[in-house]
């Protein structure tokens, strides 16, 4: 536990900066109110007032914690006001998008490695796809899937999520499948191995460490994709919708709570992926 002290120090520093920022940013409103009412405010009053606003510019940490607590534990998990409910909606889209992204990424990588034509025709588009801002693309995907008669909001969200998450998997898998050295390929040639045998016995196992490393990036991208998919055109469920409602209806604390719920969800997902990666590394005989 040698790391505890430095970690706690950083957390404490962040909290201090955060509180100072909340005080600084929220003070203007308090001063303004006081000026209108022709009152003088002392420092103690000013400080208290900046920490307890209903609509702060920057919510203070304890306000966020309270809102988060209320969102998670304060309601039935089936309630529309429960962050657990909205979290599950987002999680579902994230996992579908993640799975779809992996399938597309791995599939394209296998095709790219085995065919020069595919490499030259697909790879540039894959790169270009990631330069298009997803916030511009997301509403189109939602509208188009609606026009195609897909009622379930899950489908466009999963597609947006996969749109972001396939790319890191694709890039890593192409590197991974190409990682065997000449010597390894020559060795299999001396055995008279077929292309399929080279793939299953050498290329695929060689690529697994690359694959698992890319999953960490992909799961985070999936979550962002799912949340972005919840922002446009009237979604009412999911953490993204919660953020939007919070900011549009003047309830910043709801927005902050949803933001932190999303961060916690991301942290949890990355922990799970890391655990899977560790288990796979051990299984593959990699020393740790």
């Amino acid at each position, binding site marked *: 536990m040698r790391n505890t002290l430095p970690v706690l120090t950083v957390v404490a520093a962040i909290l201090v900066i955060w509180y100072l920022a909340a005080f600084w940013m929220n003070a203007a409103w308090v001063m303004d109110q006081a000026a209108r009412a022709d009152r003088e405010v002392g420092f103690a009053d000013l400080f208290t007032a900046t920490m307890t606003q209903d609509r702060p510019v920057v919510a203070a940490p304890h306000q966020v914690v309270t809102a988060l607590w209320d969102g998670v534990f304060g309601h039935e998990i089936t309630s529309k006001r429960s962050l657990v409910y909205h979290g599950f909606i987002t999680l579902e889209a994230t996992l579908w998008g993640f799975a779809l992204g992996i399938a597309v990424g791995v599939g394209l990588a296998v095709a790219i490695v085995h065919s020069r034509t595919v490499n030259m025709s697909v790879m540039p588009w894959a790169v270009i796809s990631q330069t298009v801002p997803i916030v511009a693309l997301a509403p189109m995907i939602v509208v188009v899937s609606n026009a195609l008669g897909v009622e379930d909001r899950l489908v466009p969200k999963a597609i947006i999520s996969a749109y972001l998450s396939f790319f890191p998997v694709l890039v890593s898998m192409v590197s991974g499948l190409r990682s065997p050295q000449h010597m390894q390929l020559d060795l299999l040639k*001396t055995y008279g191995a077929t292309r399929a045998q080279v793939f299953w016995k050498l290329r695929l196992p060689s690529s697994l460490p690359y694959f698992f490393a890319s999953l960490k990036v992909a799961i985070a991208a999936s979550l962002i994709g799912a949340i972005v998919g919840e922002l446009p055109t009237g979604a009412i469920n999911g953490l993204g919708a919660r953020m939007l409602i919070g900011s549009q209806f003047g309830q910043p604390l709801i927005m902050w709570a949803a933001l932190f719920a999303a961060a916690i969800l991301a942290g949890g997902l990355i922990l799970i992926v890391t655990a899977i990666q560790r288990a796979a590394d051990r299984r593959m005989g990699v020393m740790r």
Partner: protein
Amino acid sequence: MTTDTVISARDLSLTFQTGDGSVHALQDVTLDVEKGDFVSFIGPSGCGKTTFLRVMADLEHPTGGTITVNGVSAEAARRDRAYGYVFQAAGLYPWRTIGGNVRLPLEIMGFGKAEQNERIARVLELVDLAGFEKKFPWQLSGGMQQRASIARALAFDADILLMDEPFGALDEIVRDHLNEQLLKLWERTEKTICFVTHSIPEAVYLSTRIVVMSPRPGRITDVIESPLPKERPLDIRDTPEFLEVAHRVREGLRAGHGYDD
């Protein structure tokens, strides 16, 4: 060329086209390797010794001349799995155990499960690695890893063993030990071995014939039949016969280098 000729090269040439023009990796190389021979190829880097070995293995294609392995083309011999190839690096799969690595060629060649197991046990015994079957490569020393890679090359019972500086990356003590073991293994299995090295003592100690090569263009400058007996304890390296052969190899290497630098 006799009926016992395993590898026969006639006027073999290989020219690589590079950005700076063509490189004559091999020029007019003619050599017969007889069954049961232990032939070493020695020479400075760039003399084509590894290229020659790779041509035998059908990993490179000659631009001139002919080569036959077991009486057929190098490609046909490769498809017949006529040889086992040992590279400079052990190149074991880190995700497979030692047994799993030896199993690799057997899986590819479609041996039955029971026979795979039987062969793995036999060749690991042969290279003194019995009991290490379940270990992963990183748990073994460099010398042990290279022995495992030799076991992998032996597993499918090819009559020819092509070895490309297999002990080049190991320290001298380990190398001595492995040389001794390799000789015993050669005696027991009666294989034909082609062995690339840049160490004079190693070449003289191991070989029945030593092929001295020189660079630019890569060619054979001398072929030395070793007068040493088949039984070779390590201290044979201090005998006058040994030193005489070593001297002749050194002379051959020097002659090949003479007009170059």
